[in-house]
């Protein structure tokens, strides 16, 4: 999968990364967008951004990824950043059970603030720390099934499954959007470049009009 230039894309999707503090959100992001990993990268205050474009079914999809602060007391602020997100990676640390137990609350938070069609994936990060693992793959899968989300275990450190996780989410968003384009008479094809795509069930054209009106 080639890295592409910033402005050359057919679709722009907003994706958020959420989960407890220290589960590796920022490193998953920097691994995906810059192929970098650092244990010394600063904690996220508020929100940070990065973008990368990938190819899906001959279209170029640009992911604008929002990396949020994990500590609970900042959630009132961070939830404001979910607006307009069409995908989310909800991340936990396979070596810390508390981060797994908190997933349901993150999911609730997410569903309260995003469209019901947003594509969600549970991501168990730090899978490289095999001897420290406390959350089994089976438990992760089971929760994902119960919550009706996608699931992947990753290691930002070893670069394991990181591209795979993001690509799967982006591809799924692409499919959701494409299916609706068919229903709505191919409205998506006429979206101006740079328009963030909404996956709400509203009529695509009216949703687009509203978006243009507000920005």
């Amino acid at each position: 999968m080639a890295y592409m230039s910033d402005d050359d894309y057919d679709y722009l999707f907003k994706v958020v990364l959420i989960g407890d503090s220290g589960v590796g959100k920022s490193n998953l992001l920097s691994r995906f967008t810059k192929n970098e990993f650092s244990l010394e990268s600063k904690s996220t205050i508020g929100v940070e951004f990065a973008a990368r474009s990938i190819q899906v079914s001959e279209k170029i999809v640009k992911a604008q990824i929002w990396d949020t602060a994990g500590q609970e007391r900042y959630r009132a602020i961070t939830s404001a950043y979910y607006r307009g997100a069409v995908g989310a990676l909800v991340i936990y640390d396979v070596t810390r059970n508390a981060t797994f137990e908190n997933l349901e609350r993150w999911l609730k938070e997410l569903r309260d603030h995003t469209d019901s069609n947003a594509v969600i994936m549970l991501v168990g990060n730090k899978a490289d720390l095999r001897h420290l693992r406390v959350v089994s793959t089976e438990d992760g899968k089971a929760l994902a099934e119960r919550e009706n989300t996608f699931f992947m275990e990753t290691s930002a450190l070893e670069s394991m499954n990181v591209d795979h996780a993001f690509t799967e989410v982006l591809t799924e968003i692409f499919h959701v959007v494409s299916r609706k384009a068919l229903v709505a008479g191919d409205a998506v094809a006429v979206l101006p470049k740079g328009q963030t795509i909404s996956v709400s069930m509203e009529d695509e054209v009216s949703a687009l009009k509203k978006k243009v009106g507000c920005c």
Partner: protein
Amino acid sequence: MNSKDLIKRIFYGGLEHELRKEVWKFLLGYYEYESTYAEREYLESVRKLDYETIKSQWKSISVVQAKRFTKFRERKSLIDKDVVRTDRSVPYFEGDDNPNVIVLRDILLTYSFYNFDLGYCQGMSDLLSPILFVMRDEYEAFWSFVALMERLGPNFNRDQSGMHSQLFALSKLVELLDHSLHNYFRQADCLNYFFCFRWILIQFKREFEYEKTMHLWEVLWTHHLSEHFHLYICIAILKSHKKKIMEEQMDFDTLLKFINGLSNQIDLDSVIRDAEALCVCAGGNGAACIPPGTPPSCPVDLDAGLYDQQDDEIL
């Protein structure tokens, strides 16, 4: 030189680095301006002992005890995670097994025992780092940090009330000082000013390089012209990019991204000058925009517990 002249000089020129250790203590309220040398010497000796006492409270927690002390374990784990990613590119904190990183951790853990209600919140390590860099001594850095947190503690309130009141005051000040910018933010649905959140939470620590941050902090801590000079700094930065923001019709997401991208791109000296002009121009009307008790002012109701006692359930 009397304290007023001193404050003015710092406001207009900052401090030589060698003077910071001594003078920051006055600016932070760790020393009183009227104190004598002997009084300060005595205070130091008391504080050194007091620090050791508080520190020993967590130092003496055994493994068996820690197993039954979830809050301690959670806080310690969060602090451990944050200190290793705080300013590691600054030479003072650079490299593996750097003892200064351990000191940073010890002070934050001790603070979480000194102020158990507030505990540890992300962002605190950013505030402590330059203080430790200046003070070098562990106990002096601790008490200087305590003095700073007397002012900035409400930034970390669990209900975020301290942050909300500052963001609210900021919106009122922009309305007063730049009506067209205010109208733009209103129609773009950006009046929550969340895009200034990081600026205020950690006093622009992530927006300037290390030395510049220390300069800005001592200017802010003088409280010359206004206790809330940091809000005028926010406005000065926003105004300097007003044309771009409005011409490009930035919406909330775009604005947030744009403001984040300003990190290390802001000319501090011109921003301080502009903020001063704005503050003078706003005068009493500006002060009236800021409700009593807005941090870093003291809370209005001192009888109530200083901090919300419920801890984060997710750390």
